[in-house]
């Protein structure tokens, strides 16, 4: 049986994490780790908090990245390419 709806669409906090908005993406940002200067601008401009730091390298969380391309547009050293998604 499907889950019942709640009055006022009230749900427990943090449930937006369960909604993987990465499926909306038609272009995928790819960071060239060689030219990346780790300036953090991509992380600051990402509207979905989908850029994170791991082992001193900036990475994209493709579960939530919608492919808007802001990171690639703002990257001062053009280290981010937008690659069309294909199925």
């Amino acid at each position, binding site marked *: 049986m499907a889950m019942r709806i709640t009055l*006022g669409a*009230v749900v427990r906090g943090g449930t937006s994490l369960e909604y993987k908005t990465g499926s909306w993406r038609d272009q995928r940002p790819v960071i060239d780790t060689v030219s990346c200067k780790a300036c953090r601008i991509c992380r600051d401009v990402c509207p979905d908090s989908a850029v994170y730091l791991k082992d001193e390298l900036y990475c994209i969380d493709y579960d939530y990245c919608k492919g808007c391309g802001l990171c690639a547009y703002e990257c001062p050293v053009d280290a981010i390419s937008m690659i069309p998604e294909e199925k």
Partner: protein
Amino acid sequence: MTRAFVLEGSEAVANAVQICRPQVISAYPISPQTHIVEALARMVADGELDSQYVRVESEFSAASVVSGASAAGSRAYTASSSQGLLLMTEVLYASVGLRLPFVITGVNRTISAPISIQVDQQDTISLRDSGVIQFYVESSQEAYDTHIAAFKIAEDPEILLPVMVCMDGWILTHSYERVSAMEEEEVARFLPPFQPVHFLDVDDPKSWGSYSEENVLMEFKYDIQRSMQHAKSKIKAIFAELAQITGRDHGGLIEAYRTEDAHVVLLAMGSMAGTTKEAVDKLRAEGKKIGLVKIRCYRPFPDEDIWNAVERAQVVAVMEADYSMGSEGAVGMDLKAKLCGRPGAPLVLDVIAGLGGREVNEGTIRAIIGKAEEVQRAGVPLKEPYWAGLDPSILP
């Protein structure tokens, strides 16, 4: 012993709101609503009402503040008129979906353009599809009593919707009338503190109105409609409970006035109903079988109650101070939709009366009755609404 005062209508409403102990009040002034929120601001400033009074820069913000306060579990109140109500509209639709039970006074005033501060019901009628429960009152006493019932109705766990008490600007808000007040203890027993089903809580975080798509959105809307329909019996029970305490019975969803053997039934909402009762009495004395249905609760629409009052009539003349441009009067449309297909249903004459403060007096009502009798004789409805008192000679 009942305490009675001679009060301005706005003051009567402010007193009713005060005795209901709202924890948050937020409003932006607009004529003719202003005296209500001024009086409440003074009560808070003078320490006569323990409430957070939030001054805002627009009606959009006022509605947003009471919406947030209600989500936080507070009893909340606001009031507006005309353009102010229109500016609140987006928030009101959202508050319905979030099931936030605040109370709002809709002080009726026409909508620009042309600019005017005079009364008609176009402003609140334009909110009829939002899911806000709407009451219309005839007198300041009824405004006082209905506000007290409104909080209880809104906060009922099986309803949980905003409730708007609509009262005609100037005619009610700025005229003085004898108003009997309730005692604090009586109201405290009738209206215990608000017990929210959900409330914003940092220790138990929740999301409100979470994103919903085609698999569930329709069910959310249907649930609001179901609550609205269910609210009808609840509203009647709450009005009856209050009448038991106060000894003042204004009726249920409607008030049927001398309709039993009426051939022509007039239908009105708000202060127009008072004038109409006077006219009905005079016309009755002249031998005309006329009655009145006053709609007290417009949303949810009281179709069964109206049917019971008009099923033996031949014509129902719906007098309304609003217009759905490009079609006809909203109340007339509602009634026709609900009478359609009922065997022996009366003909409906839609009458546009009182737009922009145009006076509706005994003469107007006699003219409307004349028109209704024409329809009765012809046995067919008019193709267009009858605009009572319209002067076509001044049209451009």
